[in-house]
């Protein structure tokens, strides 16, 4: 049977599975990450629990609703590993509760994705990259480890309409990073920067493109890069968390560089999205409120501020609903501690540090495996998925709806 993988934001649709006695007997075309994701269907699944005791789904939902109803500053966090339908329910719930709403993009690709979704940075689809791009630039990203099939499906190795000779003759791959990652080992050029050195790198590139000799760094390499950029017919830039964390509030510099590059040829930006439907949430919230993350509905109309980011809201909230995410593992220690000190409701198909610390745990079905739904691929293309096994577990869109009714 054919399946869609929800292991990362590539949402590969060519997965061939054979099931036997409820287990996967053979899986084709899944990368190592996707395979681990599919196999996780069978281990460490959550069960409904309230205050450390086994409970029924109804009891757990009732208690979750009670916690949220009684809180004055509830926080709803996670979202990037939920279907678009569940995200829709989440936004409705946040409005109903006057809650703060934030997702995982808040501390990673958000700053960049915002500019892409609002049109300040030109983008394209992954299919465009495969068909047209003769340059793929991985900037502060290591897709070999995070999105393993990106290079083989789209960015470097496959043939495309205008790139029939592909990586052998018609595509070049460049990596800009602080270390020699697995992806860097494959590419023609690695430009190694010190941590925080991206702003200076951008100035140097800008200077080289104007025909000036760079004043610092590896001059020869930078001039070579300049020559390469000037010959490019269609450039695809894949910035990752590395670039976001380096530039932060100086993201305008990237816009400036892209403007300059676009005078040479089309250069498109495709931010690496961390979880399979991160872009879906950001797009949905943007369409709804004009902001991609960090909003509060406490005063009715959506407001956007850094005080509503998970970093700040973790401390100011008095209860939190965490959906499909494990902030106790993935966030800085101080933030994890703040979150653990308030009543937590965790909706997750699998056990995590967050579900182990939560007052209420609500098990949900895994998307693409046990439940149907839609999501946006990292380039914005909408992908639909169906379940491959039968399950009596509720998908999180259903759980959220029930909480909303009970609140």
């Amino acid at each position, binding site marked *: 049977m054919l399946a869609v993988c929800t292991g990362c934001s590539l949402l590969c649709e060519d997965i061939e599975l054979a099931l036997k006695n409820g287990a996967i007997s053979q899986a084709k075309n899944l990368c*190592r*990450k996707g395979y*681990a*994701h599919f*196999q*996780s269907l069978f*281990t*460490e699944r959550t069960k409904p629990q309230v205050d450390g005791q086994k409970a029924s789904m109804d009891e757990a939902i009732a208690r979750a609703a009670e916690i949220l109803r009684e809180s004055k500053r509830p926080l709803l966090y996670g979202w990037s590993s939920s279907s678009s339908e569940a995200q829709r329910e989440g936004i409705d719930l946040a409005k109903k509760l006057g809650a703060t709403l934030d997702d995982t993009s*808040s*501390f*990673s690709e958000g*700053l960049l994705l915002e500019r892409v979704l609002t049109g300040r940075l030109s983008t394209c689809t992954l299919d465009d990259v495969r068909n047209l791009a003769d340059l793929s630039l991985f900037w502060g990203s*290591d897709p*070999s*480890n*995070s999105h*393993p099939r990106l290079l083989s499906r789209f960015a470097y190795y496959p043939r495309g309409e205008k790139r029939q000779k592909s990586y052998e003759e018609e595509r070049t791959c460049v990596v800009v990073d*602080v*270390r*020699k*990652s697995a992806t860097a*080992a494959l590419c023609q050029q690695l430009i*190694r920067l*010190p*941590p*925080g050195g991206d702003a200076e790198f951008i100035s140097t590139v800008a200077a080289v493109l104007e025909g000036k000799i760079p004043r610092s760094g590896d001059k020869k390499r930078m001039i070579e890069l300049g020559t390469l950029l000037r010959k490019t017919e269609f450039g695809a830039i894949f910035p990752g*968390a*590395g670039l*976001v*964390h*380096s530039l*932060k*509030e100086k993201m305008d510099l990237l816009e400036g560089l892209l403007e300059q590059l676009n005078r040479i040829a089309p250069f498109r930006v495709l931010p690496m999205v961390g979880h399979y439907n991160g872009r879906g949430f950001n797009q949905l919230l943007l369409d709804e409120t004009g902001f991609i993350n*960090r909003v509060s509905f406490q005063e009715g109309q959506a407001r956007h501020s*850094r005080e509503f*980011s998970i*970093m*700040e809201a973790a401390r100011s909230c008095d209860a939190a609903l965490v959906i499909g995410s494990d902030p*106790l*593992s*993935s*966030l*800085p*220690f*101080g*933030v*994890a*501690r*703040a979150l*653990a000190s308030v009543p937590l409701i965790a909706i997750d198909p699998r*056990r*995590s*540090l967050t579900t*182990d*610390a939560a007052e209420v745990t609500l098990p949900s079905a895994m998307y693409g495996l046990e439940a149907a739904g839609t999501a946006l691929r990292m380039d914005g293309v909408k992908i639909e998925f169906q379940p491959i096994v039968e399950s009596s577990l509720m998908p999180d869109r259903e759980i959220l709806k029930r909480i909303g009714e009970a609140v």
Partner: protein
Amino acid sequence: MIEVKIVTFQDIFQYEAQKKGRYSEEYKKLSARIMLDKEDLEKLGIKDGDRVLVKNVNGSVVVAARISDEEPHPQPHPGLAFMINSLWSNQLVGDQADETSIPEFKNISAEVAPTEEQVTEIRELLERIRA
């Protein structure tokens, strides 16, 4: 003792171990490590696999020191260390974020020193969070 800047990154094998078991030895082994340049290991007088205490103003954690395995041509990077983004590395990341409210995951200043202590267990880290 040496001072380093730590950059966190993602690793496919650690992801796999996490999916198989968050409390497993394999997950701990792949997460609780710091990759150091050969020169830095020498400065500390330790071998690949020895344990170190990594400490900064935000917290501390004991992990295994591993020689940085950049292939095929290792490029020296003394003073720069790499850790996989995990519960262990998050002990060192500050929660007083700047005006962008983005935590500093990619440029963490820390001190590294050899230690006889065992690698910090995940349960201990969970206890610290719930304390």
